[in-house]
């Protein structure tokens, strides 16, 4: 009797898994060519983000697309030092001169208006990948409020108060799990980097589906 119950339970779980799996597909994005000149920085410490060798396998609901492509970008620095804000969502991740925007010194943010509320599965950001550098206090938030004064969900935070770990930029970008959070605006903070005090964005992709 118990054996029959166990088999039935296993069958139910397997069916549920298959059903769930049918809704999920691996997240795909077009990666830029690596730009590292010289020896890549090896990462062998347990408390650091491991340096990825390839694009990570990350499952998202079928029909998920990059909602940020071509969308309007605003920023705390309305007059960037280098480049223009539209570079953040123009689809060019090459990472060479002309493909990134540089915001001023210290804490700065960029914000993407998805135009409609969406269920967001993941955010992928490329700050700068032509050399080994880490950006400080990277925080990514989602909200329906364009001023981010209410209903803010933090999906990534490696500042001193956050639980996420610092990481080194590579051509693979940084994939952040948004866990399907609903919101129209995505805001990304940083506070300079390990080379200088400036803040850079090559590209930001926001993967999700328009909210029902």
């Amino acid at each position, binding site marked *: 009797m118990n054996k029959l119950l166990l088999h039935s339970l296993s069958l139910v779980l397997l069916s549920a898994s298959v059903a769930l799996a049918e809704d999920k597909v691996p997240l795909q994005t077009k990666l830029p060519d690596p730009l*590292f000149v*010289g*020896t890549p*920085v*090896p*990462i*062998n*410490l*347990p*408390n*650091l983000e491991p340096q990825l060798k390839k694009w990570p396998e990350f499952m998202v609901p079928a029909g998920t697309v990059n909602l940020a492509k071509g969308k309007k970008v605003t920023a705390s620095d309305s007059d960037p030092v280098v480049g223009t804000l539209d570079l953040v969502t123009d689809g060019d991740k090459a990472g060479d001169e002309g493909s990134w925007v540089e915001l001023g010194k210290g804490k700065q943010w960029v914000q993407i208006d998805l135009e409609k509320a969406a269920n967001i599965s993941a955010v992928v950001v490329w700050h700068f990948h032509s*050399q*080994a*550098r*880490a950006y*400080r206090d990277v925080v990514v938030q989602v909200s329906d409020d364009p001023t981010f004064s209410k209903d803010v969900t933090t999906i990534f935070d490696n500042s001193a108060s956050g639980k996420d*770990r*610092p990481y*080194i930029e590579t051509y693979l970008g940084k994939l952040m799990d948004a866990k399907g959070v609903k919101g129209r605006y995505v805001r990304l903070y940083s506070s*300079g*980097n*390990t*080379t*200088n*005090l400036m803040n850079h964005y090559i590209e930001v992709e926001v993967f999700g589906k328009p909210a029902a």
Partner: protein
Amino acid sequence: MKNEEGRNSVGEVGVQTGSPASFVHRWLIFFAIALLALAIRLPQLGGRPMHTDESVNAFLTGKLLAGEGFYYDPQDRHGPGLFVLAEPLVKLLGTKSFSELTETQLRLTPVIVGSATILLLGAGVELFGFTACIVAALLFACAPLPVYYSRYFIQETLFVAATLGLILAGGRMLKTHSVPAAALTGGCAALMLACKETAVIHFFALGVALLAGRIGAPDARPATADAGQKPAGPKTDIPIRKPIFIAAGVFIFTTALLFTWFGRNWQVFAELCRAIPRFAARAAGEGHQKPFGYYFHLLDPLLILSLVAAAGVYAAICDAFSHIRKPGLQLVIYGVVVALIYSAIPYKTPWLALNLWLPLALLCGFGVAALWDLIKNPTGRWGVAIAGGALLATLSAQTKELVFDKPADEKNPYAYAHTSEDLLNLPLRLGELARQHNLSNPRIAVVAADAWPLPWYLRSFSQVGYWQPDQVAGEANFFITTTDVSGKLAERLKDYRPDFFGARPNVLLVLWSPPRTNATAETPPPKPQP
């Protein structure tokens, strides 16, 4: 190039030195340019982060302040030349220990030496002519390359000053057989060797230039004879052997005095011998390989100076073939030989370009003097003056950008493997963390194959230990590692919080801080200082 009055084409224009008044005028002009050079070099001396090489030199200065002698390290160091000047200067400024040293105090030595080089050019008027020296002085005062490295606590600026001293004193010795000039010649050569082992390249190049000059223009008259300038002095009956022996004696004595650090370390000669294969291996590149034309791009990216210098080369050759001026041709030969040798050696760093700046600046001076002589009408001369002014303004604008606005920027060609500005935050962050953890005297363990320039930036912390990655690091409150440390240390650090800091382009360090306990977490932050 010979003009109508039969004068040489370089050096006759400007203040004549035949009378006491003109002598005073000449020196007033060179003092004014030296003051200008000093004024350009002094601002924001401490603003740029300390390069690794500067931090090594700072550490050695700190050891001297602590009463230790200078011990030559054949592996990766240079001679004691820089420290002979730097140690007394920082003492004069009241500094007693390594931890009290500042970037400004240390960089004052090359700043003063770089400005004093202008005065040496003033002393070179008899040899090279007034116009050539004044143009070279202005280029040294304003151009980005000499200004940048005159604010860099490394040996190059002193080396170039000593090279110019050797050329001037040697020229005078050969012309007048003067004993003081011979002693100065030996002293300058010893100072060059005590600065950098590459002095042998310059000795060779000067030897070639001297021989070629003797072969090429045996009857050449002294430059001053046709320049309307006061002759340097009559030749004496003293045979040339005597000053040469004196110069050699002073060279040997001074070299021994400096390298043994005034008699404290007689092992140094064996170390110097051991350095020869080491430097031969280094010449192959060791990661610093650059193409043949690397220095030319650094010296003259706009190719304007090269054109002016080419006119100077032409004028010097014409003068030599007219049996007027030997020093011009010899300078050309010296410059060409040095440039070829430095360019042929795969190992290249941008500060080595300063060695080529000296002949380039003087050859530009020859070129301007030749143009000035060629163009007789006032309008044309105004044109030359305006073009010269525009060139100086362009160089000054480059100096502002490269020396003051973006001194450590990766795109700055002089900021080579430079320490990132981000590293300046590391000691501040350590101090902040120490306060948060209620640690008045934190223990810091640095585990890295190459820890420089951390000893400089951690000099205010009294308990800092340094380990290689394969060694077992001691107990510490905070750890600083490279990103490739593994094994037992990785296990020890698994609960620590990492913070990245940029040391140099593509070189990151990780500061590991322990998790804060409730007690330490509740410690209020320090009140801001008024």
